[in-house]
C-alpha cells in the first residue's frame, strides 16, 4: 500500500477515525489500533513479512526484558549478541545472501577454482533495513543502560511497526518514540492541521517532482549509450531531484501522518541541497540514518578521537557501510566510497563543522561564495548519485566517463515530450524557490499555516492540489522501499 495510492487514501481516514473515536482516552486501545493497522498495512505487501517483524519484535522485547534484570556483564553481552545475530542475521540473509554468494563464486573463479552454486530466490521484505535498525537501537540502548526496558509489549510492538515510518523511516530511536506510546494522546487540532500540511507538501514532492523527474531520469539512464555527456549530466540532475523528492516526500508524509495520530517523528531531511559542504549535506540528508551510524558505529569505533589514520579508517567504514546498507550491489558501495572521498579533505582541514547553521540565515539571498559552495556541493552529490542509480558498476563507470568526454560540449537532447520537460523544469525551479524560502523550518511550507492570511493560504493549497492533479503519474513505488 503506497502513500500515494487510492488504497492509502481509504485506509488512513478509517484508521484515523477508529483511533480517535474508539480509542479516545484509552492509550492501550489506541496502541492496539495502531498495531492492527500497521500489521494490515505491512501485510498488504506480503502477509509472510508479518512473521518476520513479529519475530524480530518478540526477540527484542524479550532480550530487553532480560537485560532489565540481568546484571552479570557476560550474560548481558550474550543477550545483546542474540539480538544482533537475530536482527543482522535476518537482514544479512534476506538482503545480502545472494550478493555474498555471487561475489565468493566470482572471487574463487578469479583464483582459478570453479564453484557451482545456485542463487536462492529470496524476496526482500519491504522496510527490513529500517525496522531492524530501529529495534537494534532499542536493544543497544537498553544494554548500555541509556534506556529502561519496556514492560508494555503492545507499546513496543507499536514502536517497531508504527505504519507511517515502518517501511522507509525515519529510523526512530526508542528513547524518542517509545515513551510516546505510553502517554495519553489527546487530539490536537493545530498539530493535525500541521500534519495535513506536511502530507500535502510530501505528496507534492513525490508526485509532482519525483515521479515526473523519474520519467526523464529513467529515459536517460536506461538509454545512456545513446546520449551525449551533456544529456547524461542532465539525467543525473533529474535523478538528484527524483531521489530527493521521493525520499524526503515520503518522510514528510510519514511525519505528517504520525502527527495526525498525535505522534512526533524526527526530522529526516533539512534541505540538503542547500548544503555548503559534504559534511553539512550529511547532517541534512537522511538524518535518522546518518545519526544512527554515527551513534552506533562511528563513535563505538573511536570516532575521530584516536588519531588521524584511525579517524580516516572510521570515516571510510561509516560511508562504505552506509552505502552497503542501501543495497547489495557494488554501485552503492562506490557511492558511499565517493562520499568518503569528498568528506575526507574537509575532515583533514578540520572544517567539517564549519557550516552548522542555516545558509544565509539572516538574508534573503546567499552571498556569491555561499551560492558557489552550494552549487559545488550539489555537483559532487549529483556525480555520486550516478552510481546510486546505475544498473551496475560498468554502467556507472561508462555513464561517468561519458559526462567527462568531449560530448559534454554538445547541446543536450532527449527523446521525450517537451510537454513534460518544460513544465517539469518550471516546477523544479518553483520547488527550489519554495524550499529556499522555508529553509529555516522543519519543512518548507510549515510557516504558511502560521503567517499567511487565510485567503492566500487557501489559494496556495489549492494550487498545490491542482499541480498534484495535473502531474499525477502512475502510482510509483518509493525508491527507498527497496532498501
Amino acid at each position, binding site marked *: 500500500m503506497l502513500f500515494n495510492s*487510492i488504497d492509502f487514501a481509504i485506509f488512513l481516514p478509517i484508521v484515523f*477515525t477508529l483511533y*480517535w473515536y474508539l480509542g479516545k482516552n484509552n492509550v492501550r486501545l489506541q496502541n492496539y489500533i495502531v498495531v492492527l493497522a500497521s500489521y494490515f498495512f505491512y501485510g498488504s505487501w506480503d502477509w509472510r513479512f508479518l512473521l518476520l517483524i513479529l519475530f524480530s519484535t518478540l526477540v527484542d522485547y524479550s532480550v530487553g526484558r532480560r537485560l532489565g534484570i540481568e546484571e552479570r556483564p557476560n550474560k548481558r553481552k550474550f543477550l545483546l549478541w542474540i539480538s544482533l545475530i537475530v536482527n543482522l542475521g535476518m537482514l544479512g540473509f534476506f538482503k545480502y545472501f545472494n550478493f555474498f554468494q555471487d561475489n565468493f563464486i566470482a572471487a574463487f573463479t578469479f583464483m582459478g577454482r570453479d564453484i557451482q552454486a545456485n542463487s536462492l530466490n529470496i524476496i526482500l521484505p519491504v522496510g527490513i533495513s529500517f525496522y531492524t535498525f530501529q529495534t537494534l537501537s532499542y536493544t543497544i540502548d537498553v544494554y548500555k543502560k541509556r534506556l529502561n526496558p519496556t514492560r508494555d509489549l503492545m507499546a513496543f510492538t507499536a514502536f517497531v511497526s508504527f505504519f507511517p515510518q515502518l517501511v522507509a523511516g525515519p529510523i526512530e530511536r526508542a528513547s524518542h518514540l517509545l515513551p510516546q506510546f505510553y502517554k495519553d494522546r489527546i*487530539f490536537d*487540532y493545530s498539530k*493535525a*492541521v500541521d500534519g*495535513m500540511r506536511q502530507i500535502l507538501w510530501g505528496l507534492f514532492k513525490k508526485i509532482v517532482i519525483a515521479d515526473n523527474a523519474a520519467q526523464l531520469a529513467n529515459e536517460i539512464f536506461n538509454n545512456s549509450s545513446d546520449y551525449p555527456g551533456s544529456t547524461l549530466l542532465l539525467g543525473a540532475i533529474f535523478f538528484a531531484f527524483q531521489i530527493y523528492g521521493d525520499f524526503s516526500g515520503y518522510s514528510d508524509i510519514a511525519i505528517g501522518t504520525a502527527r495526525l495520530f498525535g505522534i512526533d517523528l524526527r526530522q529526516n531531511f533539512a534541505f540538503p541541497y542547500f548544503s555548503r559542504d559534504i559534511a553539512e549535506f550529511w547532517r541534512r540528508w537522511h538524518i535518522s540514518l546518518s545519526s544512527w551510524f554515527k551513534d552506533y558505529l562511528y563513535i563505538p569505533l573511536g570516532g575521530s578521537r584516536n588519531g588521524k589514520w584511525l579517524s580516516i579508517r572510521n570515516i571510510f567504514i561509516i560511508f562504505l557501510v552506509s552505502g552497503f546498507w542501501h543495497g547489495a550491489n557494488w554501485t552503492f558501495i562506490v557511492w558511499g566510497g565517493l562520499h568518503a572521498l569528498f568528506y575526507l579533505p574537509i575532515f583533514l582541514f578540520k572544517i567539517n563543522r564549519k557550516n552548522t547553521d542555516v545558509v544565509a540565515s539572516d538574508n534573503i539571498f546567499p552571498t556569491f561564495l555561499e551560492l558557489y559552495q552550494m552549487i559545488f556541493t550539489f555537483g559532487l552529490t549529483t556525480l555520486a548519485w550516478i552510481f546510486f542509480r546505475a544498473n551496475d558498476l560498468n554502467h556507472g563507470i561508462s555513464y561517468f566517463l561519458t559526462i567527462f568526454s568531449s560530448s559534454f560540449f554538445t547541446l543536450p537532447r532527449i527523446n521525450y515530450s517537451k*510537454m513534460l520537460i518544460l*513544465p517539469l523544469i518550471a516546477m523544479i525551479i518553483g520547488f527550489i524557490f519554495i524550499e529556499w524560502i522555508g529553509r529555516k523550518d522543519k519543512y518548507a511550507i510549515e510557516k504558511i499555516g502560521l503567517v499567511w492570511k487565510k485567503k492566500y493560504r*487557501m489559494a496556495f*493549497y*489549492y494550487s498545490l*492540489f*491542482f499541480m498534484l*492533479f*495535473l*502531474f*499525477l*503519474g*502512475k502510482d510509483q513505488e518509493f525508491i527507498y522501499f527497496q532498501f
Partner: protein
Amino acid sequence: MKLFIVKIVKVLLSFVMCIFLFVISLHCLRHEQLNYKLDKEKEYLIMGHSHPEQAFDDGIILKCKNLAKSAENYFFTYQKIKEISGNHHIKAIFIEYSNNVLTSGVDQWLSNFDRVNKASQVHSPFMSLEDIIYLYRRFPKEFIQLVSTSTRVNLIDLILQRNSFKSNYGGFTPNTVSNIDSLLTEQKQGVQRKEEELLDPNESILYLIKILDYCSEIGIKTFLIRSPQHLKFSRSNEEQLRGILKNELKNVAFLDFDRFPLLDEEYADFGHLNQKGAVVFSTWFNTLLENGLLQKDNKAEMVKVEIEKFRKKREGEND
C-alpha cells in the same frame, strides 16, 4: 476533532468540485476550438491500423487522405472521425476490417494503459460521456491519471493556442524493408509464430458499429476494406470475419483487396506492404476510384473483377 474532519472534508470536496468544473470547461473549450481542416480536394478518408497506413499512398490516390495509424483501435478511430467530420466535403470513409481486428493482439491496443493514455491526450476533447465511461470500465484504477494527463496536455495546448493535432493523426507511412524471404525461410524451418487467441467479436467491433452509425447519421458513406495481405498471412478466423460481415455488418459494402496480386518483394512482411507494394496498389486503387467504383451498385464485385484483371496483367508482364 469534529471541526477538523468537517474542515478537511469541506476543503477536499471543494477541491474535487473545482477540478471537476475545470476539466469539464476545458473539455468543452477544446471541443469547440479543435479544428482539423482537411484539404478541399480530399474527399475520401482511409482509416484503420498499420495495414492501410502502409498500403494507401495518398500522394498517388489524389482524392484520398490516409489517416490510418499504426496500432489504432476503433475506439480512437471513432473519436478521430467525430473531429474530422466537421469537414463537410468528405464523401466517404474506408475503414480497415481485416482478420487481425478480431484477435487479442488488437485488443491489446486498448488494454495497454500507456498507449491509451497517449491517444487520449489527443482525442479526449471529442469523447462523449459514454466513451469516457467505457474507458473508466477498462481502467478503473488508472482512470484519474488518464484524466490528469489529458487535462495537462490540453491545458498547455490551449495556452499555446495549438488547435490541431494533425501530426498525431496518422497518415501514409512508407515502409522500406522487405522481410518476406526471411519470414518464408523461418516458416520452412518450422518456426511457429504464436497464433493469437480469437476474441469475443462483439467487443472488438463495438466501436466499429458506432463509427458506421455515426457516419450514417451525418450522411457520410462508409466502406469496409481489407488491405492486401500476403498469402501466408494468418487467416484462421476467416469464417468468423465473414460471419460478422453477414450479420452485424450486413449493411456495409466490403471491399476486399486481400488477394491483390503483389510480388513477395512488394511486402514488408505478411501483413504490410512496403513502399514498392504501396505504389503498385495505390496506383491501381486510384484508377479504380477514377473509374467510378463508388458509383457502382455492386462495388465488391467490381473490386473482384478488377483484381482478377490486374492479376492476369501482372502474370502476362512476368511471363
